[in-house]
């Protein structure tokens, strides 16, 4: 099987510089890649497809024609649809598929597939070079996975780890790495480890975090892959000038997606607080129970902490948005509507199904373990919500912000600019590589979307995104999450009283910087996993919406 670079987040520090050096000026037809013809056929002179500028055959003509066909089965025991082909075929597939489904297909360079001998390198060029209003790349979500790695599964809400969520505040040297959260009951939570949120990591297995070149060792330590895998961390505790070593062994840690639910009793009423970290299958019942609790506590406002929520299942986001706003605001309204390129105004080009918008789901799905599918969701019936956010707030979390503002629920944003991903894609496997290319964006009931620069609190100094009422506040890793003294929580409670914000005295010193993980060119990451693309699409076509049918 083909193997791709095994790169983890810390590796960006080194890999990014190399990639940038190698891919400048990809637009306009020029390229920096070797002109050696690919294996198995050159650019039109021998066996294999030929290239004609501006002419795109159906991608199906090239799909599964592989330089190295896989001879093993997919996750369901079915053989992959690979046949002997060549790199040329693989490149032609990418060219045609991109032209057909890429959201900004008319901004793509038309590059002769015969001039590239690495499909991944070729794919890296098949993206727009346009920038957003802030000057950031418009397409920051263009990358690949080794399909074998992409087919790794886990019980919903479980991962092999120490129970630590890392805060990589700066991925290029001098790197800054801290502990962001610790899951209760996990190895990192053990008394003998004595670790807390905000602890700084200086070395991993003897490799310096700040300037170390051995990124493989750093990555292996940060993201263990096997139960029992142990690594040693040299740490500096919060407020300490000394260092110590801590050895941690990985286990299968069960993460609570809603770890904190609380009520602040203020002079002007009860304010609910909910820390929500992951839109996974497990979160549905947790959200149901948590909102029920807050409803029964008669809260009149909600602080929804999405600062570390990178997204997940859109239907969970829809349910939560309903639970915040209630029926009057959401009945018959659209939570999210996807839009593909102008070739496909009504049909999903990947599944072939008619496009349908996502409503504000008001009933629990058939995936729930505790409640029968269709059970009415609890609601708080609020006309505003305080959302705590950082640059780690992404995807489905941003859809909550966008969906609510589309039905005139005021979203007061506390923290810093969100990641800026109104986009989505169908991960597509071809010949052992899974390709992620932006294929659609999402808009709300008012047709609003386009938040490629994220959502920004009104007084954030840089203000790159769509401005929302609220306050710029740095995420202070030295204070416990959800604590009334947590600067972000405190700012929300104060704003609620008089609409005022803390004075901005600094832009990210200690605490999470607006960590906008921009991607320059596709890179390969080893993490996560699922079945073959065909199988996945088949499941999507045959998938019964959990809100339309109860088990």
């Amino acid at each position: 099987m083909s193997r791709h670079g095994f790169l983890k987040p810390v590796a960006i520090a080194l890999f990014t510089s190399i990639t940038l050096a190698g891919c400048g000026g990809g637009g306009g037809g020029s390229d920096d890649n070797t002109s050696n013809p690919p294996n198995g056929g050159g650019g039109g002179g021998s066996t294999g497809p030929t290239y004609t500028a501006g002419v795109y055959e159906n991608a199906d003509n090239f799909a599964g024609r592989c330089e190295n066909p896989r001879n093993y089965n997919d996750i369901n025991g079915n053989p992959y649809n690979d046949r002997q082909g060549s790199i040329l075929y693989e490149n032609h597939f990418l060219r045609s598929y991109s032209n057909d489904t890429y959201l900004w297909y008319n901004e793509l360079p038309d590059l002769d597939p015969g001039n590239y001998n690495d499909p991944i390198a070729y794919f890296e060029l098949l993206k727009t070079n346009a920038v957003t209003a802030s000057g950031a790349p418009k397409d920051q979500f263009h990358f690949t996975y080794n399909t074998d790695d992409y087919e790794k599964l886990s019980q919903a809400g479980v991962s092999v780890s120490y129970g630590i969520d890392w805060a990589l505040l700066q991925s290029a040297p001098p790197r800054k790495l801290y502990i962001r959260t610790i899951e209760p009951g996990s190895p990192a939570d053990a008394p003998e480890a004595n670790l807390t949120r905000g602890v700084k990591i200086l070395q991993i297995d003897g490799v310096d975090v700040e300037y170390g070149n051995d990124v493989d060792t750093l990555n292996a330590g940060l993201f263990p892959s096997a139960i029992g895998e142990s690594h040693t961390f040299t740490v500096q505790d919060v407020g300490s000038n000394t260092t110590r070593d801590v050895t941690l062994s990985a286990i299968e840690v069960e993460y609570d997606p809603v770890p904190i639910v609380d009520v602040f009793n203020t002079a002007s009423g009860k304010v609910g607080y909910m820390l929500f970290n992951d839109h996974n299958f497990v979160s549905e019942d947790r959200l149901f129970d948590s909102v029920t609790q807050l409803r029964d506590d008669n809260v009149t406002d909600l602080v929804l902490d999405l600062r570390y929520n990178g997204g997940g299942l859109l239907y969970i986001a829809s349910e939560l948005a309903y639970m915040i706003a209630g029926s009057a605001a959401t009945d018959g309204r659209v939570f999210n509507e996807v839009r593909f390129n102008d070739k496909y105004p009504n049909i999903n080009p990947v599944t072939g199904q008619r496009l349908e918008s996502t409503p504000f789901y008001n009933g629990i799905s058939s995936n729930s373990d505790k409640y029968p599918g269709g059970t009415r969701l609890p609601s708080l019936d609020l006309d505003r919500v305080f959302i705590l956010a950082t640059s780690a707030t992404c995807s489905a979390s941003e859809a909550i912000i966008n969906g609510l503002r589309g039905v005139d629920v005021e979203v007061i944003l506390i923290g810093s600019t969100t990641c800026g991903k109104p986009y989505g894609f169908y991960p597509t496997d071809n010949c052992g590589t899974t390709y992620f290319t932006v294929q659609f964006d999402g808009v709300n009931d008012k047709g609003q979307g386009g938040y490629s620069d994220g959502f920004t609190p009104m007084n954030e100094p840089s203000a790159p995104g769509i401005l929302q009422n609220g306050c710029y506040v740095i995420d202070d890793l030295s204070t416990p999450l959800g604590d009334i003294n947590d600067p972000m929580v405190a700012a929300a409670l104060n704003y609620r009283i008089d609409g005022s914000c803390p004075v901005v005295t600094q832009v990210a010193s200690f605490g999470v910087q607006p960590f906008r993980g921009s991607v320059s060119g596709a890179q390969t990451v080893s993490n996560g996993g699922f079945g073959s693309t065909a199988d996945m699409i088949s499941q999507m076509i045959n998938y019964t919406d959990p809100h339309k049918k109860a088990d």
Partner: protein
Amino acid sequence: MKKLISNSMLLLMPFMLTACGASTATKESAAKIPVQTDASLGELRQSAKTLFNGREIAISASAFSESNRLLIQRKPVRLPSGQVIDTGVDEPPFVLELFLRDGECYLRNKATGEEVRLVEVGCEAK
């Protein structure tokens, strides 16, 4: 003669119906695992791996403690920068089901229908 045959049929009928009943599928019942041991967890993980064609699946000790169903999903997708994102496409979960049949405990991949009999896992009816 006719009467003899018809009487014989009447006599045989209950047995024939019983035989029919015995040849139909045995009932299954949803199961859970009240007490998880290292051995049972190991078997559970290995069986899940078998049902997914050799793919490792992270399964916690609390699996099937409350429900006869275990939802499996892909591991989080991360950008090369480390940012966790989603694809914007809600993929259905893979589902593992735990059930009892004829007093034996089985684990089944709901999508494929493949099942593995468990010997270490202590199942009880849910």
